[in-house]
Structure formats: structure tokens, C-alpha cells
């Protein structure tokens, strides 16, 4: 029983971190209908920035979030205006290819700057856990999970309670209508993309403590994060949380009760099964185009 509870806790914590990493990806898709294949690369970029700051001045990665988030916000805004804005209204395939190209460029630049060796941040708590009886909760995962909840809550509040949030949702539902009532759709899109990339900044900082990373690590992450947001329902923030927790628990349960060699296959089999029943994901919205096709 202890083993089951421990595995469940580990799954929830892993899921919490996944939710943090996936939140920006689902936000960008939900609002802009852009599948940002570069999200994984942005995440790793933030991890490298965190690493450099930590090596240079010893700043804790959690505090480093205060730097990586605004830096990645600005980076996202610049990237959007230089690249994505030009094909914003183009077919979805074009944005996929463009963001994939961005991922390759960022990967190459990271290789030049930091080298293609694996890096890791050994913050004081990287090897520590909270202990409750015979159970343990790795500290970095706990911090990551809590941070995920904070980021998702902030995003949700911004989207539902603020003028910017209303503008973002209006631009997502009906860009022409939003423009008619005075929303600057282009600026809102840039802000949304920047916010999504900024969340990758926070995620990258915490991931730098949890995982070793090198420039090529983004391939593994983007495939996992796409699985999460597809499972939860693309574009849905609560869906990303549910998808991440489901995938995290499925992964740890598979490792413990089936075999680690199935740990990446079983969660995707779960995604497959869920999509057979709900093609638009757990909390996804059925779109008119889905009904037509």
C-alpha cells in the first residue's frame, strides 16, 4: 500500500511539473491556433539561462524565475514580431514548420553558446525530499508542482478577470469582431505568445533542477508536452493540468507495476484510448471544423 501511495504521489508531482511546462503551449494554441513546436526549445533555453545565472552568481533557480520569466517574455515578443506575425493568418501547417525551424535555430545557438554537453543545476535542495512517515516528496518536484498551480491560476485569472484576458479571448473567438470593438488583435497576439513563452521561462528554471538538459533535449519535451495538451484538450488550461497529472501518474505507475521500458509507451497508449472516446481531448471543445472533417 505504501508503495502504491508513494507511486501516486510521485506521479502527481511529475504531473504538476508537466502542467507547468505545458501551460504556455496550450495557451498559445488556445488563443492563436498555433502549435508552437519551439516550446520545448524555449524551455531548454530558459534552463540554460538559469544555469548560467546560477553558475555566475549562485542565484537559486527558484529566484531565477524572476529573471527568466521577463527575459523569455521579451524574447517571445521579439520572436513573434520578427517571424510568426508575418504568417499569423496562414495555414496551421506553415506555423508548425516555422516554429520547428525556430526550434532548430535555438538548438543550434544553444549548442554554440553552451556546448552539446549535458548540464544540470545542483541547487541545495536538488537531492532533498520532504518526508512524511515512510513517504518522500522530492523538494524540487514539490516546488515545481506548486509553481505550476500558481502559474495556471494567474493565467486563468488574467484570462477571465482582466481587460487583456477578455481581449485575448475575444481575439481568439472572433478576430474581426474583436478588431471592430477596438481590440488591437496583432498586439494581443504578440502579448499572448510572449506570455506563453514566459511560462516556458518559469518551467525551464524549475526543469533545470529536476532534469539534466542539453540543446537536443527539446525533442523529447515537445513530444511529451504535445501529448499532454492533446490529452487534456488543446487550448484548455484546466485540460493541460488534468492531462499532465494523468500522464504523470500513468508514467510512474507503469514504471513501478509494469516496467520502466513501457514508461513512455503506456501513457501514449492512454492518450490514444482517450482520443478514441473523446477526439477533442478530456476538456477540449468540439470545433465546427472537427465536425466537418
Amino acid at each position, binding site marked *: 500500500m505504501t508503495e502504491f501511495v508513494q507511486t501516486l504521489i510521485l506521479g502527481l508531482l511529475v504531473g504538476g511539473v508537466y502542467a507547468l511546462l505545458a501551460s504556455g503551449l496550450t495557451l498559445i494554441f488556445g488563443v492563436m491556433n498555433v*502549435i508552437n513546436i519551439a516550446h520545448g526549445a524555449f524551455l531548454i533555453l530558459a534552463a540554460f539561462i538559469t544555469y548560467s545565472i546560477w553558475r555566475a552568481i549562485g542565484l537559486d533557480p527558484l529566484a531565477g524565475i524572476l529573471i527568466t520569466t521577463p527575459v523569455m517574455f521579451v524574447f517571445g515578443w521579439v520572436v513573434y514580431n520578427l517571424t510568426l506575425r508575418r504568417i499569423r493568418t496562414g495555414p*496551421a*501547417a506553415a506555423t508548425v514548420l516555422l516554429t520547428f525551424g525556430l526550434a532548430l535555430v535555438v538548438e543550434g545557438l544553444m549548442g554554440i553558446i553552451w556546448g552539446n554537453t549535458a548540464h*544540470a543545476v*545542483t541547487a*541545495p535542495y*536538488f537531492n*532533498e525530499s520532504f518526508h512524511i512517515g515512510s513517504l518522500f516528496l522530492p523538494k524540487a518536484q514539490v516546488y515545481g508542482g506548486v509553481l505550476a498551480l500558481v502559474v495556471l491560476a494567474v493565467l486563468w485569472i488574467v484570462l477571465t478577470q482582466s481587460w487583456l484576458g477578455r481581449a485575448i479571448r475575444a481575439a481568439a473567438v472572433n478576430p474581426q469582431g474583436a478588431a471592430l470593438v477596438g481590440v488591437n488583435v496583432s498586439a494581443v497576439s504578440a502579448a499572448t505568445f510572449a506570455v506563453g513563452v514566459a511560462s516556458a521561462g518559469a518551467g525551464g528554471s524549475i526543469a533545470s533542477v529536476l*532534469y539534466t538538459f542539453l540543446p537536443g533535449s527539446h525533442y523529447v519535451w515537445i513530444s511529451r508536452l504535445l501529448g499532454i495538451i492533446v490529452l487534456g484538450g488543446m487550448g484548455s488550461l484546466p485540460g493541460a493540468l488534468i492531462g499532465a497529472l494523468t500522464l504523470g501518474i500513468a508514467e510512474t505507475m507503469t514504471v513501478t507495476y509494469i516496467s*520502466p521500458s513501457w514508461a513512455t509507451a503506456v501513457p501514449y497508449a492512454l492518450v490514444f484510448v482517450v482520443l478514441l472516446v473523446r477526439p477533442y481531448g478530456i476538456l477540449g471543445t468540439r470545433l465546427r471544423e472537427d465536425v466537418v472533417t
Partner: protein
Amino acid sequence: MRFRLLALVAVSALIGVGCGGGGGSSDKGTIKVGASLPLTGDFSEPGKAAKQGYQVWQAIVNEQGGLVDGRKVQMVIKDDASNQNTVVADYNALISKDKVQMLLGTFSSLLNLPASAVAERNRMLYVEPAGGSPEMFSRGFKYLFFAQQATADHQGDVFSNYVKGLPPDQRPKTAAYPTLDDPFAQPTSQGIEKILKAAGIKTVYRKTYTIDQKNFDSIANSVKASGADLVVNGATFEDGVGFVRALLKIGYTPKMLYQTTAPSLGDQYAKALGKGNTEGIFYAVSHSAKAKTPGNEQFVAKYKQMFGGTEVPEDAADAYATAQVMQAAVKAVGGIDDQAKLADWLRNNKVDTILGPLEWDEAGRPQGQFLVGQWQNGAPEIILPKGATATTQSIVPEWKPSGAGT
């Protein structure tokens, strides 16, 4: 939806695409030696180190008057982007387009498997620095030779025999084998298990994980539940570090910890774990910069002169030794035209390299023993076999992580 699907398929296809490069014309009389290495992609770091090893060899051999008959060496090195398809295209191009006269191998069993087949088809000698999977030598190839001390399944022999020979009160009674699904890591771990099982050390955990495994807490928790005294982790770098970090997180310190590959990466390993946490970790390694093997001092000095730094990567040394093996065969045979004769000579002779003396069986498997390293006081040391290659006579009996970060 269809658009997105098509785009994703296109993206997946593009991931597999790599490109080669390099080549160049040679002066009359020079000998072109070709190799393709993973200079980009997953294996780029060891690939770059291997390139440095080949470059050091080229510099030294040319300074010494050339490979044979005063003919100097011109290396032609291509980038296979860590891709199996590209490496095949590269070796074909080296032979047919660049007209290289000699070949040297690439890095990893994954890439050497297809690359060695190209050399075999063209009946060219293929000495390689980093393809130790037993699978490499089960194909009846006549031109293939591995220039390290042993194949993967025997990499842990010296360590296993050390454990086997411990007094009963110090010898571990149980062992766990969490292992990466990899053509090198898995046979190494299986080879160790075979010896230890025969010595009465019970296997309490054996599971395989895949390369994209990111979360090791559950695996570490299962290993902890098994209560193993000895943990043998067949790993590469990222997963090896991830696994040890997970053991530290859950507070499980087995008596002994052995890992493949990761601990041999020097400073990188210490940085990823925190120096204090490496104390007592065992590993196998092919080269020591301090070893008194023939030519080692010259190699280390030249490497530092050409590339700087304080450490000499093991992969650079392995590549250098690979070229030494080819050079020894050419020198002994007295030419490069009869490649079958070169292969025959290697099958029947021992070659002194910076890794120590190497010799091979009929299939090109090396017949030596790896060195055993151990992290002591934040630095890697060679502890076994005792003798000229050992850098210290003391062995830390247990893994003693201090819990400190960097």
C-alpha cells in the same frame, strides 16, 4: 486537422534529416584517411572528442614523417549528425567520391553497425574506437576491429572479479541492475550480472528503461524497495546522472554503486551530481592520462597543446588509439594496397597503444581488460587492475555521498 497532421508528419520526417560535409583535395603522395563522426546531434560531444583524437594522431604521424614511405596523412572527416542513414551515405562517399585510401571508424555501436558494413562490402580495413556491442562482431566481418580493451559484455569483468574476491563480510549479497536499453549499456550490465550471479550474489532487480526516460524517482524507489547492496546502472550520461540524483533524493545509498559511461566524463559528472556525492562510485574506463603506456605522454602533451584544457576526453584517446592500430598494421605490412593483409596482420599480432596492448580474435573482438575507475575525493582515479595503469592503490569500499551540492 488534416493540415496539422500532415505538418506533424513532415516535421517528424525532417527530424531524421542530416547532412554530410567535408572532403577536399589531396596532394600527390599524401594518404587520405576518411572517417565520419557525429559532430552534431545526440553524440556530438564524444564525436567532437573523437575528431580531436584523429587530429592529434594526424599531427603526430606527419611530424614523424608520415604513415608509410614518407607519405603524409590527410584526414577527411565528415559529419554524420548522429544519424544511421547519414553515416552510411558518408562512408560510401568517402570511398567513392573522396577516394580515401584508408578508413577509421565512427562513434557508438549504433553508428558503427551500419558504417562497418559499408567498409566490409568495399573490403577496407575498419578499425573503430567506440562500437563495443557484441552484436558488432556476430556478423562474420573480416575487416572490423574494435580498438578498446574489450567488448561491452566484458567491460565489467575486472570490477565483477573484484567484487567476487571481496571477503564474505564485505561482499554484497544482493544486486540491482536498472539499465538503459542501449547496445552498449545493456550487455555490460548483463556481463556483470552473469559473473556475480555465479558468485552467489542474488539479483533482486533487473529492469530496462528507454533513452527518453526523464523521471527516475520511481525507478530509484523500486530499487530501494529491492534493498540491493550493490547497484549496477548500465547508463549513458543523462540517464546515469538522473538515476543517481533520484537515489539521492529518496535517500537510498546502496553499499556499492557502479555505472557505465557517465562517471568517466570527469568534470561534467562532478558538476551534475556535486563533487561530494561522487565519492566511491565505480566505473570502467579505457584510458588514463596518467598511464605509463607507450606514447601516452606524447599524446596527452600534444592534445593539450592543440586543444588546451586540463582534461583529455576518453573518446579522444580511444580515437587516437584506433589510428595507432591502423598505423601499426600499415607499418608492419609495409603498404596500404592490400587491405586484407592488414586485417590478417591485426588478427595475428598485438599492438601497443596508449590504452595498453590490444589484440583481437578472428571476429575483431579485443581480448584485453578494461581499467576500473573510482571517484575519490572529487577526482576520478584508476584503481584496477593493480600495476602500471593504476593511479592509486587505495579503494573506497562503499559509496559515500556527502549530500553536498556544488
